């Protein structure tokens, strides 16, 4: 293949060029990429670079912040102004009462509370049960541990939407317990534990903790639970952060499952509640409600962006 010849022929010339460039690359403090630093250093290269940078920043801001800007300001406009054509860039008069109206009419405080309740309950269940399971599979290694792990990972192969129907029928009448979980928070919390991907991430992290550390704790007489609490968990803070964020955001963004299993309007999540009320309120109030619903996850994102992005690439490279 051509790519091989390109690589294999580099030899002496490549080395020399490498040294010459490395000086420049190091004072820039970053790895070299597609465009060579020499090319960028020339006047024409510089001009092109700055033009491209300006265009990209402009395009991205318009494409990704633009809709959010439209949403926040749309919530401040009058109903006529929202549907007016051409649209206005700034609200001609500020109507903050849309936000309070959205809050009251759509009962957003209840929807918000419900969503938080489900999300953090799911987080608690996942942190306790999934961490314990991953710890056991990684460090305590019970018999059949490999089989159990394999069966857990196998659920990743089954498309979630194929499972929705039998899962729904199951929560209508949980076997053995013979309970109907519809409209109860358990219907969100317990299935959220079956997050094989989080177990996989946790187990892989625990695998990297050196055995000696745990053995030392065991020689000091620590029980497995104690070892987990005072040795494993403190080291695992980064991965716990990633898993927690995924758990909360997962519940926050879910739509189909809460729509099916929480039909009672007073128990719905933000997504489902706003969707079911969308037809009955004026546009500007609805847009204000959307803004309010977006604030919590955006806050989480801005606060924890580093963890989220590192967790994402850790997950993406799972192989």
């Amino acid at each position, binding site marked *: 293949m051509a790519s091989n010849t390109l690589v294999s022929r580099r030899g002496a010339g490549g080395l020399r060029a490498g040294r010459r460039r490395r000086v420049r690359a190091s004072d820039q403090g970053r790895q070299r990429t597609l465009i060579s630093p020499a090319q960028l250093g020339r006047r024409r290269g510089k001009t092109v670079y700055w033009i491209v940078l300006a265009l990209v920043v402009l395009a991205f801001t318009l494409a990704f912040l633009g809709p959010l800007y439209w949403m926040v300001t749309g919530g401040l406009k009058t109903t006529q102004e929202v549907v007016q054509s051409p*649209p206005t860039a700034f609200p001609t008069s500020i109507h903050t009462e849309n936000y309070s109206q959205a809050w009251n009419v759509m009962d957003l405080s209840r929807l918000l509370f419900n969503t938080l309740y489900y999300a953090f309950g799911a987080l608690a269940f996942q942190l306790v049960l999934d961490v314990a399971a991953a710890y056991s599979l990684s460090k305590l290694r019970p018999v059949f541990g490999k089989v159990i792990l394999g069966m857990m990972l196998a659920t990743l192969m089954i498309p979630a939407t194929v499972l929705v129907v039998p899962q729904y029928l199951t*929560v209508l009448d949980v076997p053995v317990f013979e309970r109907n979980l519809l409209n109860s928070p358990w219907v969100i919390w317990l299935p959220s534990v079956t997050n094989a991907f989080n177990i996989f991430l946790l187990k892989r992290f625990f695998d990297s903790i050196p055995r000696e550390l745990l053995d030392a704790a065991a020689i000091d007489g620590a029980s497995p639970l104690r070892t987990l609490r005072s040795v494993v968990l403190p080291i695992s803070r980064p991965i716990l952060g990633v898993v927690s964020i995924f758990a909360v955001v997962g519940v926050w963004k879910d739509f189909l499952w809460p729509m099916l299993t929480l039909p009672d309007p007073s128990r719905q999540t933000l997504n489902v509640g706003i969707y079911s009320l969308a037809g009955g309120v004026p546009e500007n109030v609805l847009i204000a409600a959307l803004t309010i619903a977006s604030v919590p996850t955006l806050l989480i994102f801005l606060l924890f962006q580093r963890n989220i992005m590192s967790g994402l690439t850790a997950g993406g490279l799972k192989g």
Partner: protein
Amino acid sequence: MSAPTLSTRKPSPAPRGHHRPAGRDSAREEFVRALRRNISAHGFLIGAVLCFSFFSWYPMVRGFFLAFQKTEDGRTTWAGWSNLSYVFNDPAFWQAWRNTLLFTVLALVLGFAVPFVIAVVLNELRHAQGYLRLLVYLPVMLPPVASVLLFKYFYDPGYGLFNRIFEFFHLPAQQWLQDPDTSMLSVVIAATWMNMGGATLIYLAALQGIPGELYEAAELDGAGLLRKIWHVTIPQTRLILSLLLLMQIIATMQVFTEPFLLTNGAGPEGSTTTVVYLIYQYAFNFNNYGSAAALGLVLLVVLAGFSAVYVRLSRSSED
């Protein structure tokens, strides 16, 4: 829980097989120790295993049986192949597959290529990269109901933003979601905006792992920009590209939330009815769980086929 206290007295032993049996007593001690270790290990596992049993493994088995069962007046009987033949003879079945495939192809063209191009461009920029990365990932964190309803406003043929932009460039106004020819494309554009942040960041991480020397070598061989992309960038990221391609095919074939929220599922003349929406209709509009499960089984087989092809491809490319 009592299980962990069982093993407090003894330090946890090295993994099985590391011990040399020195006599009958120690063999017996070894057995007791292994037993204790297993009891506590399974104690840690039990919570997650129960959740998986009830909400994942049992529904998987149940879904399979459901496809061959029929429930009438609360009595469940075997239906043989009748569910499957009902599904295959439903004209909506073929339309749903056509739509799903169209969605998948469009989503691959947009949702696969666009993030890659964006990642390549971002990787070249020496400034504002953090800001741009933040922007790309922003929509992923929005609650789907917010982004979807936003797009619904933008697509509105009357006052929507997109037709205003078209007007500005003197392009003919579109009906977007209300025209069967453009409805699916509109859904894909919205879905791409909502979801491409993750893929972009994963590509970006992969691009940053490409050794700079490869580009230098290519330049010495006189390769231009496009040839460098074709012969260095793409081969170097091929593994992650094909992985994401598969993940994206599997994810897009399960699309539900976006068409459901944008076009109420079916869309004009059923033009956005996807396979999963059909499953939803069978189960929750017609109460025909058997056919829903049968269609789920068909979807599962198709997706498993994709996975098998992928595994084959990735094996043969390694040779």
